[in-house]
């Protein structure tokens, strides 16, 4: 399955970008878009497409980091709890300093710090990251209430802060630009740099990477910190959207992010996966959400349908692999 990571030169540009693994997903997404727009033509309105992209932004930002992390065969379940905490810290720092730069710095430092601790626990203490980050999740969920009992309100009224979540550059929402930039950086890193190659290598065979003289721990640590920094950015945008730092925000966010990454074909065992798949996974989940609202269905279906989609997509992927093998 290494074709995804090292495309053979003979393929067309389109299939190189998508990779055969993402084809199923792209087809599902296309079919879904067509079906929804037949049922509800307003799906293809400019306003709705922008609304979908805006909803994708937060998930895509964190999922970009998470894709790298899962490719290194680690995982971070604390991102949802961290997202809420980052928003509170960022907002508190803004209230104290009245400086967007310092507020953003505080959010990034906190998010990155959480990622660093997660990474150190996983690489130095050798704690399975599934468990280590569950522990971190508990600490952050408790910690955010010790930090603030209620939402941290916006007392600084900095216009640029409001723009983080609600602003536009031309027709494009600011969060979408953040997401696009972070996605592009992650794409280039994983695809075209030596660092990216090593990230795949450490997930595929950590021992081989260590024996060939690379510090596998540092690569994993890097992926943890990047994920944490992504949470820092997403947390600030979320705080801006809600105009407050909400300690209750981000419940279940980690599962949405991981679902999108897995849906995109990234293997939980590491070494395999693509950031383009993650993009498709995020789009698919959010188009489903949007379709349910547009069609006027019960919004509780927003939990059921993604669950079914995750399983069906994995099933189709396995069937396709078997068909290819035979």
């Amino acid at each position, binding site marked *: 399955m290494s074709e995804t990571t090292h495309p053979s030169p003979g393929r067309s540009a389109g299939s190189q970008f998508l990779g055969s693994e993402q084809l199923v997903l792209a087809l599902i997404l296309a079919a879904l878009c067509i079906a929804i727009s037949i049922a509800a033509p307003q799906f293809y309105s400019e306003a709705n497409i922008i609304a979908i992209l805006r909803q994708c932004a937060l998930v895509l930002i964190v999922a970009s980091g998470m894709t790298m992390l899962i490719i290194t065969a680690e995982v971070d379940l604390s991102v949802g709890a961290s997202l809420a905490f980052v928003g509170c810290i960022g907002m508190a720092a803004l209230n104290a300093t009245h400086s967007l730069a310092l507020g953003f710095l505080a959010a990034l430092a906190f998010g990155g710090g959480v990622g660093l601790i997660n990474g150190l626990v996983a690489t130095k203490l050798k704690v399975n990251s599934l468990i280590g980050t569950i522990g971190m999740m508990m*600490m952050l969920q408790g910690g955010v209430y*010790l930090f603030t009992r209620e939402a941290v309100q916006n007392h600084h009224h900095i216009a640029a802060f409001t723009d983080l979540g609600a602003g536009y550059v031309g027709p494009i929402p600011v969060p979408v630009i953040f997401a696009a930039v972070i996605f592009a950086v992650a794409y280039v890193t994983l695809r075209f740099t030596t660092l990216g190659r090593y990230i795949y290598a450490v997930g595929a065979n950590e021992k081989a990477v260590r024996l060939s003289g690379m510090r596998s721990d540092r690569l994993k640590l890097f992926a943890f910190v990047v994920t944490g920094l992504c949470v820092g950015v997403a947390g600030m945008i979320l705080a801006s959207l809600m105009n407050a730092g909400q300690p209750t925000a981000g419940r279940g966010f980690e599962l949405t992010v991981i679902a999108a990454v897995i849906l995109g074909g990234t293997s939980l065992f590491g070494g395999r996966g693509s950031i383009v798949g993650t993009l498709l996974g995020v789009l698919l989940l959010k188009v489903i959400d949007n379709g349910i609202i547009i069609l006027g269905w019960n919004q509780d279906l927003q939990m059921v349908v993604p669950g079914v989609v995750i399983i069906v997509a994995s099933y189709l992927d396995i069937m396709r692999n078997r068909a290819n093998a035979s």
Partner: protein
Amino acid sequence: MTNASTAIDAAATGPSFVARLLRHQEMALLLCLVLVIAFFSFTAENFFSVRNMTNVLGQASLALTAGIGCAIVFISGEVDISIGSLLATIALPLIIIMNETGSLALGVSGALLFGLIVGCINGYLTAYVGINSLIVTLGMMFVLRGGVYLYTGQRAIPDDAMLDSFILLSDGRLFNVIPYSAVIALILLFAFAYMMRHRPFGRQIYAVGGNQEVARLAGYDVRRVKFICFIISALLATVAGIILAARVGSAQHTAGLNFEFQVVAATVLGGVSLAGGIGSLWGMALGVLILQFLSNGLRGLGLPTEWQLVITGMIIIAAVAFDEAKRRRANGG
């Protein structure tokens, strides 16, 4: 206690009997539990009383029951994180059937049947189709939780039947001392611990989790073993869900939120490896009790629940880190 870590311990000759004893996973955990209880007995008011001890046991019965299934699935080399949502879901058939028919037996049968179906789906997709169990049960978790939200409209469905036998499940105590929920959990624990140690099927589970290829070559039906493990897990989560429904007296759409994380944490704390093939149900049980006594004691000290979360999180990381360090030293690396 003949698990893999013990085998490693036995190979290394320790300096003293006590030190050798401590190398046993379960002994170290037991010591931890005793220390936790001793600490809070001196510091927290009303902690060391029969009433409080049995209360904690009753509270632990949920995680204990579901933890058996969680540990068995772990030992078989898979994971099941759908148990929290299942806890909430099976309360629906239970309460609805009881309200309609006024029969506890029918309600419980309905709940168990539902759990069985969910276990079969999880097991089939994992063992026979070959989808990663984390993905399958993550999907199932969404489907079940969303299904409960859909069906209930995010409102609790109260138990109108008010059957004595059902209420007894939450309030009743054997000999007026031990809560019935704890009795059920302990009976299940003993039964399954016996199975894991002394029945061929238990050994098959260890073999499959330890090395799937070797187990296959030894003639075990790997798929069937895993399939059954998922059914066991779902049925035990169902039993936990019935106990929970009795305790809250209704079917709650938010029941069991994050429950899977608590159970996974306790199971791993108890020395059951996520990699499969290692650990014991006794270890899991000690893990559950340590966390339960800890949170009870911290509450007794007057600490807010938030601190309990923080401290529990730290202890889980510390315990697993300690265990990992010990294992590496035992392996000489």
